[in-house]
């Protein structure tokens, strides 16, 4: 005697749930590995693409080309200074192909450097309205922070590029925020990370001495940093870079 349809459907759903529960530990190893090793499966990169989830799912393997097309469309909106469309498409490119550093760097830079000018120009109505400097500063800070957040996320995905990415953050703080303290902090982060950029310690020390007037702190930090390089804590730093740092220390101590 066949079961009624509703009963059969309910049993089917229950059996599927049971099977899913039993089978998920089998695929658990693969799921965990993907989340840890593949940026495309990292929840942090997915946040910006939740609305585009369908696209992300359907084109499972076509990610690279879809990301490139999204980037081309973002360029069109960049030319028209359309902030919302440009940022959405750039973030979609990142979400589709998060393993591509090009998208991260350019998105963060466009947001931090270009977009404040676009918003300021829009609010000025072609120069007919004068904007309060405090408002201009607020707009710059808003976009700079978004750029910095993107770089911070990129560091998690590209640990080998950490030093270079912190330098980009320092440049945003230097040129968009005019904040020497924050700029110095980012140069220090770059200098002290496992993949330092050779000039980051010198840039950090220069800001401390020339802009913040902290000559003693700069010398103390540089001495300790040189000691760490000599002890092999930063194997990525070359001997030429060490020579430059020692010369810099001698200059400060004069």
């Amino acid at each position, binding site marked *: 005697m*066949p*079961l009624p349809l509703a009963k*059969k459907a309910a049993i*089917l*759903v229950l*059996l*599927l*749930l049971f*099977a*899913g*529960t039993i*089978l*998920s530990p*089998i*695929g*658990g*190893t*693969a*799921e965990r*590995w*993907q*989340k840890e*090793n*593949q940026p*495309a*499966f*990292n*929840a942090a990169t*997915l*946040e910006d*693409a*939740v609305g585009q*989830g*369908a696209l*992300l*799912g*359907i*084109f*499972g*393997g*076509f*990610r*690279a*080309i879809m*990301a*490139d*097309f999204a*980037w*081309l469309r973002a360029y069109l909106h960049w030319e028209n200074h359309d902030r919302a469309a440009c940022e959405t498409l750039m973030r979609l490119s990142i979400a589709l*192909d998060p*393993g*591509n*550093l*090009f*998208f991260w760097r350019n998105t963060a830079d466009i947001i931090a450097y270009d977009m404040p000018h676009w918003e300021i120009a829009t609010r000025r109505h072609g120069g007919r309205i004068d904007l309060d400097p405090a408002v201009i500063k607020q707009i710059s800070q808003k976009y700079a922070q978004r750029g910095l957040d993107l770089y911070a996320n990129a560091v998690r995905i590209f640990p080998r590029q950490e030093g270079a990415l912190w330098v980009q953050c320092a440049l945003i703080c230097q040129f968009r925020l005019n904040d020497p303290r924050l700029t110095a902090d980012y140069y220090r982060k770059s200098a002290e990370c496992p993949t330092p950029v050779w000039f980051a310690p010198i840039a950090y020390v220069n800001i401390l001495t020339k802009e913040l007037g902290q000559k003693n702190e700069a010398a103390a930090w540089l001495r300790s940093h040189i000691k760490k390089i000599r002890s092999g804590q930063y194997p990525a730093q070359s001997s030429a870079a060490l020579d430059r740092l020692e010369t810099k220390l001698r200059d400060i101590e004069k």
Partner: protein
Amino acid sequence: MRNATLRRLCAITANTFTEASRQRFFALLVLLGMVVAVSGAFLRVFNFGSSELKFTADFGFGCVFFFGSILAVVMTTQLFFAELENRTALPLLARPVRRWEFVAGKFLGAWALLGVFTALIFGVLGALLLVRSHELAQEAIRAGESAPWFSVQGLAIFALLQWLRLGVVAALTLLVCSFARSLLYAVTVSSLALLVCQMQGTARAALASGSNSWVRVVVETAGRLLPDLQLFDLGVPLALQPAGVPAGVVASAAGYGIFYTVVLLALAVWLFSDREI
């Protein structure tokens, strides 16, 4: 007795495979798949920053999944409903052929065809990647840079995983066919289910990070209803990254695919067992 069952199963499988391989739809998709996979190499002008091999491989993998899924859904549904609509299932099931043998035979025939499709596309893609990786390696040596990495073995393992993934899709389609009353309904529901299977990993990762624990429970429960097809997306690390993928991870994905296929087929047999034809 066992020999007889095996013989009947082989006969249905062979018949399904022959019937399917003669269809123009299969030939068209194979041709289209190959052309699209190869065209990835010419579309690299649109590429921003990722390595050329990764771009070409990614394009080819997408091609196998996209056209393979269409083939798995449409071909399986068509093969199943052709027997019912042409009434050829009636004399077949009137003989000592059990219903589970009919369902399993249909699945094995469709899966074998999907195997041929996967092998052909991966064969073309593998040859393309191999030739290009040699060229790029020579250019890199001349420029004093490190040569790009490409593993034929990794690509072959990924091809097997893709075949298993398409097997899950075919089994899911058969489950829908076992209760569907029309071909159109079966194709539509199977396609939507495939979409959910492909998206559910993304949806779970995105929604589970929310603070509401109820949302997390609902999303997790819903995620258990259908298989997560993103688990099989191991192509790039398998074929293009020197570190590769640990054997345990490949085994985990393969085991998940095999067990899910068996479970979905068992449910399809259960639903089909008391269906009026």
